[in-house]
């Protein structure tokens, strides 16, 4: 298949071809993953622990170097420059606790800010204004903006994390179990916020989760990951009992456990 016409309006937000990763002294975490995520699609990667969700997202942002395969974002291959078209939300927030919320949000724009400004923490005024707007958008106040992240609750921290991911106007938002450490109610609020914020910008989302109910409630499309393979791909309505048991229950008799029993 050759490249579609450059003028084609909708290069997919994310296009993975044959993505493979095996850790040096570990299992094959991703095994020839091919996946296309359309613009504006809220796509949830569902899988149990160790299924390769984090590895998949880390490969896209270059935190993990894949062994083979191709990654294209908006039709262009990934480089450090194109990273600014991606925003990432982390499971453990990935915020610098001793900086304020606003400083953390503006740090998301580090790749497009001159070094001397970073050195002095003197961000350009437009970046500062945008950080304020985003913090307001995720439901925080001026007091929160000037407070150290250390002094925020888990839910508030993840709101800051989302604001940071949005500051470069990404067309693709990656979220690695963004609500893993939050209570069910806060989880739903954060997922709603992520979905709304993405929709406002027509940004695609690739969000890993292990909570079935959240995946059902928010996803446009669910990818089931198990042992580094995509074993389910479809809308939430198609996620029936059989599909779930292949994603989750299969794990109980999965390779590792089988080994131990044999």
């Amino acid at each position, binding site marked *: 298949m050759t490249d579609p016409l450059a003028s084609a309006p909708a290069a997919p937000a994310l296009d993975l071809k044959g993505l493979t990763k095996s850790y040096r002294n570990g299992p094959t975490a991703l095994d020839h993953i091919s996946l296309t995520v359309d613009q504006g699609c809220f796509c949830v990667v569902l899988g149990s622990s160790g299924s390769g969700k984090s590895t998949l997202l880390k490969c896209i942002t270059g935190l993990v170097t894949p062994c083979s395969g191709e990654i294209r974002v908006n039709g262009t291959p990934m480089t450090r420059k194109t990273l600014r078209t991606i925003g990432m939300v*982390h499971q453990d927030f990935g915020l610098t606790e001793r900086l304020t919320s606003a400083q953390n949000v503006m740090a998301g724009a580090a790749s497009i800010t001159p070094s001397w400004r970073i050195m002095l923490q003197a961000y350009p005024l437009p970046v500062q204004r945008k950080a304020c707007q985003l913090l307001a958008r995720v439901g925080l106040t001026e007091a929160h903006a000037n407070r150290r992240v250390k002094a925020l609750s888990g839910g508030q921290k993840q709101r800051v994390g989302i604001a940071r991911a949005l500051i470069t106007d990404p067309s693709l938002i990656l979220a690695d179990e963004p609500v893993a450490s939050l209570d069910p109610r806060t989880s739903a609020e954060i997922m709603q916020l992520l979905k709304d914020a993405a929709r406002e910008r027509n940004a695609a989302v690739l969000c890993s989760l292990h909570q079935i109910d959240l995946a059902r409630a928010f996803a446009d499309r669910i990818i089931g990951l198990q042992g580094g393979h995509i074993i389910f791909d479809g809308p939430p309505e198609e996620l029936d009992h059989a599909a779930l048991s292949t994603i989750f229950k299969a794990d109980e008799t999965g390779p590792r456990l089988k080994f131990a029993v044999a």
Partner: protein
Amino acid sequence: MTDIPTSSAAQAWRLKQPYGWRTLLVLAALFVFAAVSAERMQFDRMLNQIGDFAFASVGLKEDSQIGRGMGGVFQDMFPIAIAERRPVELIEHFDETNLPLFSHVETVRVDQSSLDPDTLQMNTITVEKAYLVEPVGYLVYVLGKMVETIEIAAWASLIAILFSLPLAWLCAGNYSPHPIVYGAARSLVSFFRAVPELISALFLVLAFGFGPIAGILALTLHSIGFLAKFYAEDIESADTGPQEALKAAGANDFTILRLAVLPQVLPSYTGLSFYILDRNIRMATVIGLVGAGGIGQELKGRFDMFQYDRVGTILLVIFLTVMALDLISARFRRDIV
């Protein structure tokens, strides 16, 4: 009564015992080594002398070597020298109408015998000799030397901190630009740390001459060796979450260090830096002994001239300063860190 249900297999278990014949062997070996080493270190002579001194001090013995050695010195040390009294003719540009603060001129008559060249007879003449007396002159001088000592330590600490920050970057395994740079930086830093201040000061005095320059440089080198190592270790052990997050956002190493690492390590850096300042002040009093400026240089000079009353003043000023610094830094640590 119900017994805990017993399992026959568990009855055969053997738990690891904390001590065994190996412990005994190690202890015996340590004892032999200690005995040999104590012999080499002349422990017998040390105990003899201390015993003699103890007997002598309660009157059971005539005298002891320790008593003889220290007694004279301590007797000469008190009263300590506070005033300064100098012959006027030795003072350059002496101006009787414009004396230093609180000082006065004292004239004494001294008999001088001289040979009369005509009669070839010794005759005694009385001359007036003028002295400039400053009642707290020597104490002020020593305090000035103490301030100089603190200045040496402060400069050394400041320069060391400034150089250690970039050096720590090269020494941190996860941020060093290249393995060769990492190896070179690490070796340099451990070399700096391995050379004691007193020894580097000895050579720096040869290179730069007597005075504070050698002292500042000697302290700086050693402090860099200490700070860069511990700064680097803090960088290496910083929480990786924020660092990965910024890396995923396309930030470069410098940015990550500034925004994700520095805020994390800053409290620890502050503590380390204050520790090195504290230590440098104490070390700065010592390196003067080899001529590297500060109060130690004055101490060494007076000690060599057997002016023990002045030595007493110097020691008192050092002790009081170090104790005061201890109090200040303890309070400071409570408030800041």
